[in-house]
């Protein structure tokens, strides 16, 4: 303990690297927070100043809240992300378990399908999907927002890696204790896959909270708009944006994500240290 906490040269270098890196990575956010507090004419100036000359936070946030129905947006965001995440996990975990721990011939073929799914961007298949949802009259609703993402090949891929490392004997013990395969998945695999599930949760929620492309295609009624869709109310491509309010709105919809990450990373680390034993 004593030697650990001493400031050795190596540690100083490490800390310096980390801090410099953090500043670089945070720079855009620093600008964002600064801009959210500036009036429009204060943002683009020749002088580099991070502190707004007049504090305009109130006005910008007020504008963000007034121009956009933030409540609805955030609610939609939460509902959509939660539904997507729950379905993804429910679908992917049993599948990954079967591929990792059960012998069946289709596993190889499924691996190909999974990799294929990883490769195919939604941008490429959006059109056929759009046509399909339209013909089923499912546009403009949570179904359209959620359904295509209920299958996450990324989740299957991630869980597969994780489950492979779980000892076979654990599953054998569960079988002898009288659990069904579904019981094993829900009682043994899932509780021990917390790090993977949280890591995936972080990625899934971030991706779908911020996704603009697909909502743009399937949602044309403001009632179902997700946060980024609402953010577009500040965009006016032809003549520049209202940056202060845009940044304010961005902060509002980013904060839930940051909070979620802070919560999740704690569980994530706990999860790993708790299950990090060999048997």
């Amino acid at each position, binding site marked *: 303990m004593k030697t650990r906490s001493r400031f050795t040269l190596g540690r100083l270098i490490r800390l310096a690297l980390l801090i410099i890196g953090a500043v670089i990575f945070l720079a855009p956010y620093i600008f964002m927070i600064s801009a959210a507090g500036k009036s429009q004419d204060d943002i683009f100036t020749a002088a580099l100043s991070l502190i707004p000359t007049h504090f305009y936070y109130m006005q910008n946030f007020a504008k963000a809240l007034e121009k956009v129905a933030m409540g609805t947006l955030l609610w939609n965001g939460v509902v959509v992300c939660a539904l997507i995440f729950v379905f993804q996990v429910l679908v992917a975990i049993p599948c990954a378990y079967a591929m990792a721990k059960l012998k069946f011939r289709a596993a190889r073929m499924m691996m190909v399908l999974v990799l294929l799914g990883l490769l195919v961007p939604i941008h490429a298949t959006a059109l056929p999907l759009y046509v399909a949802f339209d013909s089923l009259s499912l546009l403009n609703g949570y179904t359209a927002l959620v359904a295509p993402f209920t299958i996450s090949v990324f989740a299957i891929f991630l869980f597969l890696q994780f489950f492979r490392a779980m*000892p076979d*004997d*654990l599953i*054998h*013990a*569960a*079988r*002898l*204790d*009288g*659990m*069904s395969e579904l*019981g094993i998945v829900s009682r*043994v695999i899932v*509780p*021990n896959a*917390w790090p993977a599930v949280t890591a995936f949760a972080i990625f899934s929620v971030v991706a779908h909270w911020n996704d603009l492309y697909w909502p743009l295609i399937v949602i044309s009624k403001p009632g179902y708009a997700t946060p980024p869709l609402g953010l577009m109310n500040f965009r006016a491509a032809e003549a520049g944006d209202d940056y202060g309010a845009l940044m304010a709105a961005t902060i509002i919809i980013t904060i839930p994500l940051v909070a979620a990450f802070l919560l999740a990373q704690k569980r994530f680390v706990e999860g790993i240290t*708790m*299950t*990090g*034993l*060999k*048997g």
Partner: protein
Amino acid sequence: MSALSLSSISKSYGDIAILKNISLDVPPGEFIALVGPSGCGKSTLLRILAGLDHADSGEIVIGGREMSDVAAAGRNIAMVFQSYALYPHLTAGQNIAVPLAMRRLSSLQRLPFLGPVMPGYRAIRTGISRDVQETAKALKIDHLLERKPGQMSGGQRQRVALARAMVRHPSVFLMDEPLSNLDANLRVHARGEIVELHRRAGVPTVYVTHDQAEALSMADRVAVMIGGQMLQLAPPQVIYDDPAHIEVARFVGQPRINLLPARVEYGTVAFGDMRMALEEADPAGPDVTIGIRPEFVRLAADDGSSLPACIERMEFLGSEVILFCRLNAIGEIVLAKLAPAEAAGLAAGMTVALSFAPDKAMVFAPDGRRLRASAVLADAGREKAHG
């Protein structure tokens, strides 16, 4: 009717045959110890018995029922895994409770959130935790029930794994080295608990161990498996005193048996002051091996008939002393086990005279088979060991 019966089980991984035509009949209530060197296929056999792995051929019958259609979960077998296989996310108490909960609670009652409000849940849970408490107390882990596996030492984990198996009333017990990580005192205690449980419940048990003391002291019969074959299956005393194969003799007995080369001449084998007449006619060749356990090697006055040897090393083991002596005549090492009192005054480098009890010696054919022989008493002319 036997409680558990295997017939001609074989299993290969790839080209390598791990189990070769293993058959085994366990009458109700019998305790079988399965011993054998590391990697000989013991765990594999248990896994096949439990339905966790599948034999390439052969048949398993438990309680009169053919098991090929029964999944592991349906066989009602309790098993202690060599690697413990505790659920890392559950406390020790919860780990032990799992098999009971799976059997006593209905599938509705097992549901999260909903289960606990089902009728009857409380009563069953109380029963379960009483049983868990009881088993834990027997294995001296009742103070650990709230800990998770990560917070326990190896020995403690192993006892939890044992408790998880013992808490049930299965139709067969399978235990894979369940006490290997305990210190000697704990091991003796746990051994007693297992024997006690077995006597009370009368459940047929197959017990894998690499500790001979366990195998010999606990089992009704000991099965010695070497290289995927079951070389002998017999009561402990027979395994020790009357091994059917040189490998069995070599594997059982601590310190290990002395094996010395000898020749058959005119139907008799001679070594040192021993002389034995072979009962069987014709071994594969004249070169046989004589086996004699260290406790039957004695120090003798050097009267010409005993073998002079040089003490190379002495091992003090508390209640006994092991002498490593190199025979002057043939350069082989012979072990002798003495009481500390007998060994007093001896030291490495000294020369002693060794004598063997011919009625305790065994003769093995070149292919390892045991050859029956009887001691020939002193009247026959004495001769030096050849070679």
